[in-house]
């Protein structure tokens, strides 16, 4: 609770209070704000415009309610969705608010607050003091990055002295300078000036909002960032707003529809002008014109009247329905048990609900390697110590043996502190340790000292390591088992048990790891007083800093390293050096100075680190195995069968990456060639790219300019080559190849290859590669990754998928979809994506069909009513057609439809390709819809017209009156579109049946109600159709007309589709036919070998059993 204020030297008003508006609205602002937002959408603004038109009496061809009712309903649905989104975004932060929310809101920059155990940190705090010794606090950062590991933070000693003495804290007077608010969770730079002394502040002293205090009774902190300035909040914003290609297409189509609407209205307005001129001017005897209206002005007014009547071609409910469908399909992803990973209790999650159908159109997948393809669970497998390689098992003949479950494990029982889960097979290493070879001891001492792992020892001898990276955990565990047990650490010391003897090393400096340095070092003083620097890092980096005397050892070690990498292991090189005490003291003061500066702190520190990390002595290398995740090769194979190209972008070494490529089945021995591009100059890269692939191809790639409208978008056509090729390109070459002059060359070559692996790429390059493909290939891309280094790529791709794994939540937080295992990608794309795409396209096609058909009938009627903007249907029918009569059946179809079930979708990945080619909904498909609607509307108007215009009821009375005709036309229309929907639905669940029959029943119920005596007597002006239903729906010729129109509208479609299936069946038709003949998949396999059965190899066979297991 807050009890005193740190005296801020800035005015507090400048800073945010801690009250965070995670929600956009409150109770009072909701209505105006939401309405304002909604009317910014073009469609809604258009309907507002229509509403205004309708209020003008001379134009109003429809009562106001025909637009108001749908508009209000649409606004209402959207508002409810917005409100619930808003409500949910509120819910996320419930844990924050639950705890004395009033107080939380009051927290301001400069306040000092006290936190107790297991409480959430309220704001970004500078840790002042804590209950634990050495002013340590333990925090859990699950809310921030998902890792449940405990992390340790430590207060400055000067502030820690204050303890929980409230007087001292209240009198605390210091000055904090720090960086401006930003979103980097892992970095902080600042200084504290206190009693004329400057202290460096880094991430170690900062508690971030969203963390939970653990194992710490209390602590005090000074608020540095509050509210929206906290790092957590800075991280919440999504940088780019993604839209699907269907969205873009829809926008184009809506523009087209507007044009079409204007065209139709112009035609009708001209018709009206002619009619008014020829006939209307005589007819004025019966119907005088309003003052000042002549034929041409009447035509002008008619234009606008028809804009109102024909507005249904731009369907207001389209956008809402699309949103609902996407939302529904996102929920299916959340609910899928087959994408739930029990081991980490993680279900799949659709974090963005607007991109679903794009999942069915993916052409390129960009995948990270570590943690995505692999488990990111590291095991210490091999090592090389001063030129000798350990880890392999040989038989007596000196042949290397395959390590299996049965291979004898090294017995670590001599070491009481050993981790029983650790296994190692090479006995010679234990012997080397027991022989007390100094290099071997130094090697393991380094592993035990040089890391940032935390140890927890709940009971004596039961150690639990909390490692930030799994590599470190594996290395420290290895050292522990071999007798160099890391036991505990304080900020100043590290305690290890060396071969049973407890020793405490003084920790003088930690030279941190980062992506540029790619190494970490510690400087320690042994109990004997010896100063040494221990360094571990990437081979290339450490090799540059070795003492020349190691060159011989370097060669041998390099050999070993290549061997390790060739087996797909992750390698690190270890080196050490002894330090001169005087030199170190001097260096230490400079280090302190550098670390307390605000400007260029990092550069200056880097320089200092560079200075001391040189002339190192090589100790050896470690090799860690990162096992492939379950089902990765099978998934990759399935995806490539679905014609999805997979590019692996990894930070690993080329050899490691290649090896993973082979083990994932991406690179295969039977491939025609695997090109490796590892040149060091742009020219060489160019040459390699050019000559390796297709020397005979033209020099300049042909670029297709797409469209007239968007001149910027270029497109590289796909080129085909004989045979299968693979491409491996390393980071150096990639940097050159991504240059403007070479990028097209790179893309051409890469796209001709089956497999592309880029190794040693930086996060930025990952994004660049994605952007490159996006730019030149009009294809949908997906990026999948698990770590912070994948975030850029995830954000750049059309769809970003985050794997919630070992490396925290960074990737997941910026992704659109997330799940726990790479293999779920198969189901996400081949099942959910395909269905979503199919459903969305079916929905759009049907939606446009039903609205165009509905509208075109008005158009034909215009030729019979003097172009006077008379409607064909009852106004109420126009009002509720989209919202009540036809809303649910089509929603039902687009939420439940499946052409084939999930098994078949996975069994035949080829089913995925129509989505990549935009087969189901494109401009062509749209025009087909328009033509189809045109035909249907002709039938729907002219058949009832011809059947009714001069006939009478069976008792001689009127039936060719306007109201009866309106009823007939709307009933024909509704039944026809319902039958059409039935034809389009390929998966009839009970819900679909209910919606369809229910809608028809509701139509008749509502119609009879609205045309009843009671409604007329109460609302005379609104329901003039009294009795129409009773008087015309009891006539046989009315029903015969309805039957004929339905037959004429639907049977041609049936015949056309049947012919298509017979003459040029699509892959879907084929699979459906196959399904008809073999309803049981397992039977199919045994009896009718599937088309690919002839080439079953080992891998495929495992795939089959794998797929079976998946089901």
């Amino acid at each position: 609770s807050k009890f005193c204020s740190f005296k801020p030297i800035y005015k507090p008003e400048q800073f945010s209070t801690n009250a965070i508006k995670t929600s956009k609205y409150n109770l009072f602002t909701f209505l105006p704000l939401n309405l304002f937002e909604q009317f910014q959408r073009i469609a809604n603004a258009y309907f507002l415009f229509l509403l205004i038109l309708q209020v003008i009496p001379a134009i109003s061809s429809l009562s106001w309610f025909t637009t108001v009712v749908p508009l209000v309903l649409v606004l209402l649905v959207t508002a409810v969705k917005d409100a619930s989104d808003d409500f949910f975004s509120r819910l996320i932060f419930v844990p924050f608010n639950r705890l004395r929310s009033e107080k939380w809101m009051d927290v301001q920059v400069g306040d000092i607050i006290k936190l107790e155990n297991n409480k959430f940190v309220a704001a970004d705090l500078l840790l002042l003091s804590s209950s634990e010794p050495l002013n340590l606090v333990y925090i859990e950062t699950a809310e921030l990055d998902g890792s449940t590991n405990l992390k340790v933070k430590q207060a400055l000693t000067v502030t820690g002295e204050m303890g929980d003495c409230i007087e001292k804290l209240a009198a605390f007077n210091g000055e904090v300078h720090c960086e401006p608010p930003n979103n980097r969770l892992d970095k902080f730079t600042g200084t504290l000036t206190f009693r004329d002394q400057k202290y460096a502040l880094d991430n170690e002293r900062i508690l971030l909002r969203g963390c939970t205090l653990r194992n710490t009774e209390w602590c005090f902190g000074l608020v540095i960032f509050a509210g929206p300035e906290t790092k957590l909040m800075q991280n919440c914003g999504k940088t780019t707003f993604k839209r699907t290609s269907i969205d873009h297409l829809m926008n184009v189509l809506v523009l087209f529809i507007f044009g079409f609407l204007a065209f139709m209205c112009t035609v009708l307005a001209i018709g009206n002008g002619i009619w008014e001129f020829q006939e209307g001017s005589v007819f004025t005897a019966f119907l005088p014109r309003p003052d000042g209206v002549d034929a041409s002005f009447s035509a002008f007014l008619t234009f606008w009247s028809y804009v109102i009547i024909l507005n249904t071609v731009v369907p207001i409910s389209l956008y809402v329905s699309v949103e609902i469908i996407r939302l529904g399909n996102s929920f299916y992803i959340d609910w899928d048990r087959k994408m739930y990973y029990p081991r980490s209790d993680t279900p799949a999650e659709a974090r963005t609900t607007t991109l679903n159908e794009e999942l069915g159109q993916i052409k390129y997948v960009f995948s990270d390697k570590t943690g995505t393809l692999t488990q990111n669970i590291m095991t210490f497998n091999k090592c090389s110590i001063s030129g000798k390689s350990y880890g392999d098992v040989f038989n007596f003949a000196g042949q290397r043996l395959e390590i299996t479950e049965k291979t004898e494990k090294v017995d670590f029982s001599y070491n009481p502190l050993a981790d029983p889960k650790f296994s190692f097979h090479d006995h010679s290493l234990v012997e080397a340790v027991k022989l007390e070879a100094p290099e071997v001891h130094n090697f393991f001492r380094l592993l035990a000292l040089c890391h940032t792992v935390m140890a927890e020892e709940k009971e004596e001898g039961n150690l639990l390591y909390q490692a930030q990276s799994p590599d470190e955990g594996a290395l420290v565990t290895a050292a522990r088992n071999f007798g160099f047990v890391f036991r505990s650490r304080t900020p100043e010391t590290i305690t290890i048990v060396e071969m049973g003897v407890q020793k405490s090393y003084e920790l003088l400096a930690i030279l941190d790891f980062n992506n540029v340095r790619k190494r970490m070092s510690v400087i320690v003083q042994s109990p004997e007083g010896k100063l040494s620097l221990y360094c571990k890092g990437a081979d290339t980096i450490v090799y540059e800093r070795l003492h020349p005397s190691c060159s011989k050892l370097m060669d041998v070690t390099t050999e070993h390293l290549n061997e390790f990498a060739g087996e797909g292991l992750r390698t690190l090189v270890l080196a050490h050096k002894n330090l001169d005490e005087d030199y170190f003291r001097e260096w230490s003061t400079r280090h302190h100075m550098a670390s307390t500066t605000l400007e260029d702190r990092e550069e200056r520190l880097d320089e200092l680190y560079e200075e001391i990390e040189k002339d190192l002595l090589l100790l050896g290398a470690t090799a860690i195995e990162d096992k492939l995740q379950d089902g990765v090769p099978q998934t990759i194979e399935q995806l490539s069968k679905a014609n999805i190209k997979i590019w692996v972008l990894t930070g690993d070494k080329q050899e490691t990456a290649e090896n993973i490529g082979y083990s994932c089945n991406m690179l295969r021995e039977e491939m025609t060639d695997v090109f490796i591009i590892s040149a060091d100059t742009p020219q060489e890269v160019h040459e390699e790219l050019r000559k390796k692939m297709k020397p005979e191809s033209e020099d300049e790639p042909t670029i297709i300019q797409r469209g007239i409208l968007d001149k910027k978008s270029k497109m590289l056509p796909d080129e085909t080559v004989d045979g299968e090729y693979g491409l491996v390109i390393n980071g150096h070459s990639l940097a050159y190849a991504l240059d403007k002059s070479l990028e097209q060359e790179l893309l051409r070559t890469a796209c001709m290859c089956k497999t592309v692996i880029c190794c040693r790429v930086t996060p930025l390059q990952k994004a660049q590669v994605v952007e490159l493909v996006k730019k030149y290939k009009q294809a949908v891309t997906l990026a999948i990754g698990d770590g912070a280094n994948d975030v850029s790529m995830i954000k750049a791709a059309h769809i970003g998928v985050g794997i919630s794994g070992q490396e925290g939540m960074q990737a997941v937080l910026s992704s659109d979809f997330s799940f726990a295992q790479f293999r779920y990608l198969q189901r996400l794309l081949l099942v959910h994506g395909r269905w979503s795409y199919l459903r969305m396209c079916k929905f759009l096609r049907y939606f446009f069909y039903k609205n165009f058909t509905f509208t075109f009938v008005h158009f034909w009627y215009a030729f019979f009513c003097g172009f006077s903007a008379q409607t064909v249907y009852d106004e109420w029918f126009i009002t509720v057609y989209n919202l009540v009569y036809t809303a649910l059946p089509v929603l039902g179809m687009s939420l439940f439809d499946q052409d084939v079930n999930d098994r078949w979708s996975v069994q035949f990945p080829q089913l995925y390709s129509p989505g990549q080619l935009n087969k189901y909904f494109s401009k062509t498909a749209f025009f087909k819809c328009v033509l189809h609607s045109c035909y249907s509307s002709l039938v729907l108007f002219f058949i009832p017209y011809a059947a009714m215009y001069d006939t009478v009821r069976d008792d001689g009375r009127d039936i060719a009156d306007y109201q009866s005709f309106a009823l007939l036309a709307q009933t024909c229309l509704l039944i026809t579109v319902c039958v059409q929907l039935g034809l389009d639905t390929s998966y009839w669940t009970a819900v679909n049946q209910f919606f369809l029959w229910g809608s028809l029943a509701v139509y008749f119920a509502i119609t009879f109600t609205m045309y009843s005596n009671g409604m007329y007597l109460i609302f005379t002006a609104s329901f003039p159709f009294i009795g129409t239903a009773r008087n015309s729906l009891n006539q046989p010729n009315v029903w015969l007309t309805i039957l004929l129109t339905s037959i004429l509208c639907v049977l041609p479609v049936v015949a056309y589709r049947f012919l298509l299936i017979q003459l040029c069946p699509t892959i879907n038709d084929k699979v459906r036919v196959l399904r008809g003949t073999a309803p049981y998949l397992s039977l199919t396999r045994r009896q009718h070998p599937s088309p690919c059965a002839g080439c079953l190899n080992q891998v495929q066979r495992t795939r089959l059993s794998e797929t079976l297991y998946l089901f």
Partner: protein
Amino acid sequence: MGKKVAGSGPCSRIPDNSAFKQQRLPAWSPSLTAETVLPFFYIIGLVCVLLGVALFLTVQKIQEIQVDYTTSGTCDACFEMRSNKMSASVKCRCSVDFSLKENFQEDVFLYYGLVNFHQNLRRYMDSRDDGQLVGRTTNLKNPSTYCEPFAYNNGTPIAPCGAIANSMFNDSFTLKYLPPTGGVVIVPFYRTGIAWYTDKNVKFRNPQIENELLPQVFQGTAQPFYWQKPVYELDPSDPNNNGFINEDFIVWMREAAFPSFKKLYGILNRQSKAIFEHGLPAGNYSVTISYNFPAQYFQGKKLVVLSTVSWFGGKNIFLPIAYIVTGGVILVVAVVLTVVYIKIGKKGLNMEE
């Protein structure tokens, strides 16, 4: 971040295993196979043809004759008179002769027909006040603005108001049978029972004021401009057929959907004369028209139609023929589809991968 629900215990976040959530709802998934499509086509085609033939035979039995009297017979003089503003209100009678080739069996209906009269213009159709017509006394004196410019006559509210009522068809007909034996028999027609029951009894009501007769109720309203008599004197012969519930008026007020239409004028009274007991006998007829309705303002034609009906309604040959043609086409398509199926589909020629 939206949907995270905190739980406890292993597998606490496992999604429900319901058929709905796992998209495993039991469903029927039909597909267009030859076994379903072909029989369907044959059956529908056959049904259509049979239905068409049955309808055709039915419609053949219906008799109908249309007599255009716009300018024919002695009506051309009347037509000219109505064209001339000066003589617009002078009474004019004319007659047209025609003959029936065969007996018109059973009930015979007399219609008047208008060709090219747009009752379906939007502004025309809006120009009425249903509140007035349903007998609301407030609307009687304050007709809706939709009736403009036929709402008030110099400040006096018009009843019934609006363009539709104003332009009510006001020709009247007397049909005479000229038996071969000589003489003239006036054909008797019921002039009521020609409107929808709901119109007569619900939609159109006379305003009711206690102890007042119809003329008194309409006191203070004006008759429409083009009318020769007020609404409460439309049918001098039947006091219950006056005011808004006059059936000629009701029939006119039910606007036609298309510019050419016919409206019921009367039903043959088969009871009153033995000669008409079985309908209209074949022979010569003459229809005398009280020619009031101007035809030149809609540049069309006026007709008298005599027709019988069947269960299928009036004599409309379109549906039967459409059914026969549709059925025929469907059968042809069915044969084509069968051939395609046998030649290509059945052998699975295109089904190979």
